[in-house]
């Protein structure tokens, strides 16, 4: 407590503390810009749930009254429920297939140096830059010439194609911080190749797998162009919503549905973030 502080140090300290006070107060342009940007970005999204409670079919102010009937009606619409089920099936299968393929591809890309590695990595990433409409129409031509009728199967095949780059890049970053000697150590301790994969590789890249599943599911759930071309008479949810939006009477239902999807995706995101933080803490 009684340690003497030298005079110059004292002066330096007080100078450092008082410096910000002397700065002139300026108009916070940056803050205004940031708030304006956020409003522009999210206000339309917030209008969606707002009008889903509006007792009227016209989406305009002033609002007429509060109602939950649009939500209640959702449960009675069989085609909507069927489209929802279709989307869930497509999303789940796409997530599983793309993530499994991505897991093995990423491990090979990170671990081994083989001929054509860079070329194949480039090809895997290509769907990110090819226009969806090109992919969709060429796939439709391809599947029909192969005798595959448009169905959920063809949608899944298309979605795996577009979701794979996401799965591969997420899994690659999971393998990047993975010490190769961990697998060698397991093998050295008598474990088989498959046992090593199951007991060491999988648990360690598990957070990456969860992240990849969530992202590829979202990519598929959202996707419209491919689904529109390839789904035939089994529409996914985006295709169904698009078909409904032409009928003004159905619009409030679509808003209710959209609000529910918004809520679900926020919850999904929070869950993913929770798992990500937990895995980051343990690593």
């Amino acid at each position: 407590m009684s340690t003497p502080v030298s005079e110059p140090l004292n002066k330096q300290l007080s100078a450092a503390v008082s410096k910000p006070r002397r700065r002139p107060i300026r108009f916070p342009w940056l803050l205004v810009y940031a708030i304006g940007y956020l409003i522009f970005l999210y206000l339309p999204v917030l209008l969606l749930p707002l009008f889903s409670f509006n007792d009227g079919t016209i989406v305009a102010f002033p609002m007429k009254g509060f109602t939950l009937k649009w939500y209640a009606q959702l449960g009675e619409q069989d085609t909507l429920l069927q489209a929802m089920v279709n989307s869930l099936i497509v999303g789940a299968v796409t997530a599983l297939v793309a993530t499994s393929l991505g897991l093995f591809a990423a491990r090979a890309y990170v671990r081994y140096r083989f001929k054509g590695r860079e070329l194949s990595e480039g090809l895997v990433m290509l769907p990110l830059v090819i226009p969806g409409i090109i992919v969709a129409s060429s796939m439709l031509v391809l599947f029909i010439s192969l005798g595959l009728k448009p169905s959920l199967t063809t949608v899944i095949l298309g979605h795996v194609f577009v979701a794979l780059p996401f799965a591969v890049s997420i899994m690659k970053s999971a393998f990047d911080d993975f010490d190769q000697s961990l697998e060698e150590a397991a093998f050295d301790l008598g474990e088989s190749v498959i046992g090593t994969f199951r007991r060491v590789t999988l648990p360690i890249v598990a957070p990456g797998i969860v992240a990849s599943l969530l992202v590829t599911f979202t990519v598929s759930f959202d996707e419209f162009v491919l689904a529109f071309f390839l789904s035939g008479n089994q529409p996914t949810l985006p295709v169904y919503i698009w078909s409904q939006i032409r009928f003004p009477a159905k619009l409030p239902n679509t808003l209710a549905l959209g609000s529910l999807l918004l809520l679900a995706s926020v919850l999904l995101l929070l869950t993913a973030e929770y798992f990500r933080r937990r895995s980051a803490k343990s690593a």
Partner: protein
Amino acid sequence: MTTQNIIEISGVEKRFGTFTAVRDLNLTLKEGEFFSLLGPSGCGKTTALRMIAGFQDHDAGSIRIGGQDMEHIPANKRPTNMVFQSYAIFPHLNVGDNVAFGLRKLKLGKAETEERVAEALEMVELGGLQSRKATELSGGQRQRVALARALVMRPKVLLLDEPLSALDKNLREAMQFEMRRLQQKLGITFVMVTHDQYEAMTMSDRIGVMFKGQLKQVDKPEVLYARPCSQEVAAFIGGMNFLDAAVTGEVNGKLHADLQGFGPLSIDVNPNVARRGPQLLAGIRPEQLEISAQKPDGYDGYLQGTVTNAAFYGENVHYHVTTDGLSQPIAVSVPNYFHTVDHKQGDPVWLGVQNASVIDLGAREA
């Protein structure tokens, strides 16, 4: 008591494309031996260790462990276990599960597994830490867990890849003695790869020195230090003054030679020397030289010179002494008795050397 050969390596070669990482490796290790492979980085010592472990195939020759040929036997079926340089502690398992990892495959009962894990942790002085998370361990503790995880398998041979290089100096020195004690208690053969000569010398029964894929010399630490087989081995282990000498004759295993700066001396023929030439290269360890202001009594060769550098190292004092006709100053190391540096830069001094302190190193290397 006869000790069996546990590892027999003959004519082993390993190539990566056009690069030969290990060439014509011949090595026989006895049961219960602590053996170190010492060499600079990239000399092929880690590749040799990984071939013994089974992580790498050999292109020629044979490796036998416990009398059994290891050709086509993968790492998970070999009677060896490894301590990795990074320790490779499984981050998703606690200490107990890390140590029990290999035991699960042996299908022992739960009680026996737990008993062996406890015993192994006790051995490395981590008793009772079974439920500690792997991510909460310090560097030294990780090293101990890696040791316990390998030793719990009761391997015939324990392989260690630079096991102490990730630890700080004090911890490293403590672990050197502890690992040596553990190895002697268990009687398991340890094969360690290191680039640290002191580590190799303090821990090993025998050391193999490797350069550019070739095993140059295998000997006990003191023999390696006193009778290195060549200039490069001598230069890698400890300090050494290299001096040219002209041989005038050889009588009863002694070379009579005129040593640069020191004059005529009688040098023991070094049986380990691999290559001889017209000119003899002699070596003198810095600590084997006497340094004095007056001509000291009882030495076989003398040199009069000037101190060009004096440095206090704590446990000893280092001098550089030069004289006309020497291309390199001679390094001298004197134990620190009185915390003083007796000779200053520019002082004239005498150096004295005994016949027995001069090492025959064969031909000078280009």
